[in-house]
């Protein structure tokens, strides 16, 4: 039934949309339409909330709140490139934060290294924990052939359980002031420093994934794992590296969360789980792998954070937000499905047309 509805949607509609958004291929068109929809939501917010939303203070706080969300989404998106998923990102972030928090609240280490040295050590250990967790994920996935979904489901319990076990489920509080204040530091008094850092990370990450052999291998593996294997790509190394990077990114997010809340506990940031998947899907990362641009994740995160802040201003409860995120995720996946179907149909039609033309071109000289 749905097929019939979609088939009825005429190609000219898409041609018009193509012209409107200045896109040539249909894949990116689907993306643009999704963005246009979010933008429309934003305009709606602007109209309904007006300057109570669009004022420097709110916009600055939106940028302030983005870093950990963006890093977790990037980690999720990276896993999706290979057709996997990383459900353990929040648990890794928590675990890294907990280790860092223990070091930062230890008077003995502060006495030995000074405050600066202690913070540096804590961050290094936190990142190392994330790296180890990521390597562990990658190793299990590659060596035992367990689907990433199952692996990260298990390690999510494992890491969260480890964190709960170590802390006894209690939060660790009382980080050094220098560390907590660093999160609200600003560049030239306007742009949050943390946001500039995130921007740099995204630019480097997307450039690297686009231009390196590693990045190309990731996408190829996501498109077809057997194809990647037979083209001689060292898939084990590639996959382990990608999950290790995911772990590192999650750990970095954990360190930022530690500074923001001035405390760390298993369960902090649990809501990011659904949101990170939503962002990755919305940014055009195909959950089945092989498609998407990592750089798209950043604007999507900013847009979503804007919407989230607007919801908060409008006084929606966390449950209402959760419902809207879930509904949006379903809606966008359904739309993506239709876009891909229409695109596939158009491509088939074009291929048939070209073949017919080629056949004509072949036969015409023969007759003449």
């Amino acid at each position, binding site marked *: 039934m749905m097929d019939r509805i979609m088939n009825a949607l005429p190609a000219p509609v898409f041609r018009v949309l193509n012209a409107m958004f200045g896109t040539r291929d249909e894949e990116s068109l689907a993306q643009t339409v999704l963005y246009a929809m979010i933008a429309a939501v934003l305009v709606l917010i602007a109209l309904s909330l007006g300057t109570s939303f669009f004022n420097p203070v709110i916009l600055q706080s939106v940028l302030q709140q983005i870093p950990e969300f963006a890093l977790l989404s990037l980690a999720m998106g990276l896993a999706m490139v290979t057709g996997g998923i990383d459900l353990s990102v929040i648990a890794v972030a928590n675990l890294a934060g907990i280790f860092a928090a223990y070091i930062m609240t230890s008077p003995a280490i502060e006495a030995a290294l000074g405050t600066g040295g202690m913070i540096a050590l804590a961050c290094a250990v936190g990142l190392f924990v994330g790296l180890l967790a990521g390597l562990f994920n990658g190793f299990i996935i590659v060596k035992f052939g367990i689907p990433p979904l199952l692996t990260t489901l*298990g390690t999510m319990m494992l890491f*969260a359980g480890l964190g709960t076990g170590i802390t006894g489920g209690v939060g660790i509080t009382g980080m050094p002031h220098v560390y907590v204040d660093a999160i609200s530091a600003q560049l030239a008094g306007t742009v949050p420093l943390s946001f500039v850092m995130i921007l740099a990370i995204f630019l480097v990450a997307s450039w690297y994934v686009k231009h390196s052999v590693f990045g190309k291998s990731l996408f190829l593996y996501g498109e077809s794992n057997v194809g990647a294997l037979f083209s001689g790509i060292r898939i084990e190394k590639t996959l382990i590296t990608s999950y290790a990077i995911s772990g590192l990114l999650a750990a970095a997010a954990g360190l930022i969360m530690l500074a923001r809340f001035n405390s760390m506990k298993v369960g902090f940031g649990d809501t990011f789980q659904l949101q990170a998947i939503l962002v990755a899907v919305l940014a055009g990362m195909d959950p089945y792998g092989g498609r998407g641009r990592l750089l798209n994740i950043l604007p999507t995160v900013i847009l979503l954070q804007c919407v989230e802040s607007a919801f908060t201003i409008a006084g929606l409860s966390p449950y209402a937000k959760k419902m809207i995120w*879930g509904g949006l995720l379903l809606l966008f996946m359904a739309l993506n499905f239709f876009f891909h179907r229409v695109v596939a149909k158009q491509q088939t039609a074009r291929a048939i047309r070209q073949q017919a033309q080629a056949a004509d071109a072949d036969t015409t000289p023969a007759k003449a």
Partner: protein
Amino acid sequence: MKMKSNDMPHPQTKSDAPLPSGGTTGMLKAALSRLGQQSTVSMLSFIIVAYIVVVALISPDFLSWATAFDLVRSGAAWMIVALGVLVVMISGGIDVSFLANAILSAYVATLVTKLTGIDSLSFAILIAIAVGAFVGTINGLIIHLFSLPTLITTLAMQGVIHGFLMVFLNARPITAGRMPSSLRHFGTDTLFEFPSGAGYIGLSVFVVPLIIAIFTTWYLLNRTAIGRAIYAVGSNKVAAMRAGVNLLKVNLVIYGYAGALAGLMGLMMVSDVRLVDPTTLIGNELLVLAAAIIGGAKLTGGAGSVPGVLLGMTLVTLLSNTLVTIGLSASWSRFFIGFALVLIASISHYQTKRRNLRQLNFENV
């Protein structure tokens, strides 16, 4: 390092089968694959018995009817919902919306029972199952129509269902005093009782729905055409479609059935704790998934059995409830469950990977 472990005697390995060449790793691989060949059920039974023996040695009080009945009471509802998850996983899908579904069904059932004044347990159960099945069917419909990844869909549905309950139904906790009396009795009634120490101990009536659910699930999976179709879809979707399996029907049955069991489970949970709190349950989905996977279900589908998932849930229930008895803090329970999950998944998937590679099947490289 390598030499050292080579020198170590491996009597079992030697007596059983010819060693694959390759030294330590070869032996390790052989041992792993042998572990994988053991049926999940016997391996799990062994682990559970061993664990119970250890617990009983540390604290002899553990071996008593009271403990056993208590574990049955606290585990029955979870086993029921795990059976639903098993059916989903056999089809190659995964469901994380069932606990949101359970609490929604239980809330609606309690509310309707209160509003209509029909204070009857069977009426409440009927409504809970109907609501659960309806929500589950929506899951199945969405997944089928748009051919979406099941995890992401049901994760989104979890948010939608819970948000719907909190926002549109404006759910507030219903305390024991305002709960229908039939539900309160459901939680405390026993099949039989006998005197023990200071008071009476008895087997909770929860075993009745549990046994019914076990039989229905077993019958559905093993004795009906749709049950075989569920296994077929999980093993190879394309082949199942070519063989004439109606995917829409299968999807609706799977998710509807899982939803119905979730509804039943929700009602049992609120009767057990004598409080309908719309914010509970959610967040424990992983425990149930872990139980199903430990019990031999595979995310890739086509595998899993009723006895396996029952044993898996038993292990998870034991690990969640008895760590304190052996002197460990209860906060470690998730760690151990996660560990068991990763370990058992590693063994079974490693086995599959090796077999596939031997047959030049590069599906899961």
